[in-house]
């Protein structure tokens, strides 16, 4: 039996592409790469307001629906070069989609060589994405990844030259599809054909780098640090809280509600943090290297987001990561005293 690995994002296209190949008697296993920028229900679930949303990893869910194994691979470190130095540039925001797809297919190609699989499948559709899923970019992905003609896109295979699995008769090209463009009608028809009742519909894609606000925070972080290097914690924290930068040398990350407070609690050993003592208020982390004077301003800003915002005096505790604590009594800033440009 021939063996294929399928790039499973958790979305509908990779589900359908995989199903088409399973139905041809190919042994398929899934592979999912975790870059740190992946949008998952769980990331949103940090916030308490989202607690009622179903929390599931869509790639795992798809794999279970298909009855296949799923290998989830941590590529956080290797992926940094894709984000920092994309050969093909960024999309509308900080999304290096073409480099990203090439990277993932390359990793999948390495995986099939290691695990003695025969080819790779993806859910790509010609013309569906403006950067990575165009007729002229599809050969680039195949070539730069090294996968060459071992990369099969079942949903649009008939619009592309035959690949090795088709030429060798491992799969029947006639049973593959010729989808193209942004219309979802062909996918919906296939969903109905397979009687699939539930599938993920991620609004705005599956990657935070396609998000305007997230991209702005990432650029701000790089600019303030004078370096594009990052660690996982850095990019996770960009997803959480209200980010306010009064100065290049530091910013505040202010929890917006209880779920975010709980999440930021886990970072108290890494960051100087502020807690409002005299009133109910959010936990605030300080990212950077603030002066004593900066910390007074930070306390005034944090107090603005507490229930003491109208009070003449608010007591704030400042603790370093070593848990050296001091207390300040300050007057909260008013909304007008926090310039819009400080909001990242």
């Amino acid at each position, binding site marked *: 039996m021939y063996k294929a690995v399928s790039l499973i994002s958790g979305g509908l296209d990779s589900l359908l592409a995989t199903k088409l190949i399973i139905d041809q008697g190919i042994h398929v296993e899934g592979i*999912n790469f*975790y870059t740190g920028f*992946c949008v*998952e*229900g*769980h*990331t949103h*679930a*940090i916030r308490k307001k989202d*607690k009622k949303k179903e*929390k*599931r*990893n869509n*790639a*795992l*869910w798809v*794999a*279970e629906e298909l*009855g*296949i*194994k*799923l*290998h*989830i*691979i*941590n590529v956080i470190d290797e992926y940094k070069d894709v984000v920092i130095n994309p050969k093909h540039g960024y999309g509308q925001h900080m999304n290096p989609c073409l480099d990203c797809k090439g990277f993932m297919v390359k990793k999948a190609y390495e995986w099939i060589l290691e695990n003695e699989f025969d080819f790779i499948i993806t859910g790509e559709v010609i013309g569906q994405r403006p950067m990575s899923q165009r007729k002229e970019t599809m050969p680039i992905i195949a070539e730069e990844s090294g996968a060459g003609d071992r990369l099969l896109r079942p949903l649009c295979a008939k619009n592309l030259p035959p690949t090795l699995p088709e030429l060798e008769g491992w799969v029947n090209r006639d049973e593959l599809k010729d989808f193209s463009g942004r219309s979802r009608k062909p996918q919906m028809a296939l969903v109905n054909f397979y009687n699939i009742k539930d599938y993920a519909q991620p609004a705005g894609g599956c990657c935070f780098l396609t998000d305007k606000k997230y991209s702005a925070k990432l650029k701000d972080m790089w600019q303030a640090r004078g370096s594009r290097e990052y660690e996982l914690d850095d990019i*996770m924290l960009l997803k959480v809280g209200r980010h306010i930068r009064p100065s290049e040398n530091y910013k505040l990350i202010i929890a917006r509600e209880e779920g975010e407070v*709980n*999440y930021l609690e*886990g970072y108290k050993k890494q960051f100087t943090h502020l807690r409002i003592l005299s009133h109910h208020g959010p936990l605030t982390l300080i990212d950077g290297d603030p002066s004593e004077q900066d910390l007074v301003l930070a306390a005034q800003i944090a107090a603005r987001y507490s229930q003491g915002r109208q009070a003449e005096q608010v007591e704030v505790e400042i603790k370093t990561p070593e848990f050296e604590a001091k207390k300040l009594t300050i007057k909260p800033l008013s909304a007008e005293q926090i310039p819009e440009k400080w909001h990242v």
Partner: protein
Amino acid sequence: MNENLYQLDACNLLCPMPVIETQNRVKELNVGDMLKVTCTDPGVKNDIPAWCRINGHEIISIEEDGRKIIITVQVGAD
């Protein structure tokens, strides 16, 4: 069958990191071994069992202690 009990701390990791950490640790263990994974992301209550189901491992228990979720996995034959 040699049933050893191992621990994995995946607290403060968000999905899918607890699953990845579990997956990587299980690869190092033998059939029948137990792995007790401690997490804080509520999503693990769905995801680690789902990962176990598709990979042939068994969930022995899911316990909650405040914000912590403790999942015990028994390694199956791959």
